[in-house]
């Protein structure tokens, strides 16, 4: 497919200032988070997050609701400003959103007034200058084919299912040519069948050499995190911080069925479940203490 197998190196266009003497942050680190804290009003959402993400790595961020995983993703994207610390992408401090970091949201990555083809064509217009309208449309259709949506380019987002919208959203991010893909519970609103299909599609895309991206994938589903992530970060709540991380090599999960039957998966699932419980229990104890002191909850 002409036009589609080119991944542009857009790292050099990333917004933000150059950091003197820090052009490279260790081997292949493309995205790094340094002592990052974030608060809404007076509520601390994230506290002192440190994280290095290697080029081409698939990071799954796992955590219960309210742990700040969406905030972390928005900070990585540059859609929020940190309270303290910083995010560095390809040697530059992230100061705002940029096409070099594409984002797939849960259910609103597309403009509803544009059909699917035009939603993609906008991204193509941004990533490859000087193409004619016809060429952009042709490439848009190719990306739609790639995510399993042949011949639906003329449909509008409201005319297609949630699963198809998310496929198109992924295609748009690929068309944008972003080397870093940030995904915020992208399959959270889908039915189980579509969820599995899209997980497989992502795995296929991310582990094919031509479309390989660095991915940060936020989810609250343990299975999904373990199946998709090369590295799984577990976030704790109140305030959000990384409480644990696991490495799950891709080789162990080429086959979905075998992976879920494997001891590796089952042990990890139990471990993560107990981490979750410990965190919940800690919070419950804290709230009892607060209640015991006479404060209202």
């Amino acid at each position: 497919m002409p036009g589609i197998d080119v991944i542009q190196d857009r790292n050099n266009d990333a917004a933000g200032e150059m950091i003197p003497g820090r052009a490279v942050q260790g081997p292949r680190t493309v995205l790094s988070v340094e002592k990052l804290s974030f608060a809404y009003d007076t509520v601390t959402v994230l506290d002192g997050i440190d994280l290095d993400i290697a080029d081409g790595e698939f990071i799954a961020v796992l955590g219960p609701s309210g742990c700040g995983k969406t905030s972390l993703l928005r900070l990585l994207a540059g859609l929020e400003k940190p309270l303290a610390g910083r995010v560095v992408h390809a040697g530059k401090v992230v100061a705002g959103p940029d096409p070099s970091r594409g984002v797939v949201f849960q259910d609103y990555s597309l403009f509803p007034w544009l059909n699917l083809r035009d939603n993609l064509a906008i991204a193509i217009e941004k990533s490859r200058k000087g193409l004619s309208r016809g060429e952009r449309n042709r490439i848009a259709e190719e990306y739609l084919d790639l995510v399993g949506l042949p011949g639906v380019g003329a449909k509008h987002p409201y005319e297609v299912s949630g699963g198809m919208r998310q496929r198109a959203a992924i295609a748009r991010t690929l068309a944008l040519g972003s080397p870093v893909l940030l995904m915020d519970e992208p399959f959270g609103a889908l039915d189980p069948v579509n969820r599995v299909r899209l997980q497989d599609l992502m795995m296929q895309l991310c582990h094919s050499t031509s479309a390989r991206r660095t991915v940060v994938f936020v989810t609250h589903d343990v299975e999904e995190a373990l199946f998709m992530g090369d590295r799984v970060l577990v976030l704790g709540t109140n305030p959000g911080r990384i409480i644990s991380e696991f490495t799950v090599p891709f080789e162990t999960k080429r086959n979905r069925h075998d992976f879920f039957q494997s001891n590796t998966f089952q042990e990890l699932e139990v471990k993560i479940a107990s981490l979750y419980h410990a965190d919940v229990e800690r919070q419950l104890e804290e709230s009892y203490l607060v209640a015991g002191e006479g404060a209202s909850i």
Partner: protein
Amino acid sequence: MTKKTVHNNREYGVLKGSEGILFLVAIALCWQLTTSYVQLSNPKLYPSPALTWHALVESLPELLKGTWSSFLILVPGYFLAVLLGASWGIVVGTVGWLHRAFDPFAKVVAPIPPTVYIPYAIALMPTFRLSAILVVFIGSFWPVFVNTAAGAAAVPLRYRDNAGILGFGKFEYMRRVVFPSTLPSIFSGMAVGLALSFILLTVAEMFGANDGLGKFVQYYADYADYPRMVAGILYTGAVTFISMALLDLLKRRVLFWVR
């Protein structure tokens, strides 16, 4: 066991959905009956439907000419107001400091009833047509502007996020994101503006026009030709209704994506 509701289809039968037309027929019947069997008032002041219809048919050429004359005022005034009100509204709604600068002024000036500008506009402009255009423009500008600015200031975060990720500049953001996402608000403003335009147009024409729908009604009222006057009122109502219906049709076509 399901409870029987008042919205049971069988109770309405074939009449369901035609209530509006039935009501109009009932009104027309009442009109006919009161004029032919009850001497409510002076028959000259209260013409029968037949007499009014006759007057309408007879005056149709004059009314059509008047419509043309009225539209020569309405169309430029209204469309200029929509164009400037929507584009200025988008800019003011998007650019923070402009909003802070312009908003207090708008809050003071927008509520002034535009009819009070009519005498000054007539004095100010060289021709009556230009002064009426100015009044229609002022009257419809504010509803369009106020609605657009409010809509543009409230562009959903998800669109702003997507615009940022796509790397849109300020102008591109306004054109490709703020404008389409504000269209529902623009159309609300346009509907209010159009209704107001017809009011202003006819009032202005009663003041000093030589032609037009308002002038037609005023003229035959002055000569106590009430069948023609009533025909003029009904005709003006029909023109307004058709214009509003056309705007609504346009809105449905443009806003097909709004669910």
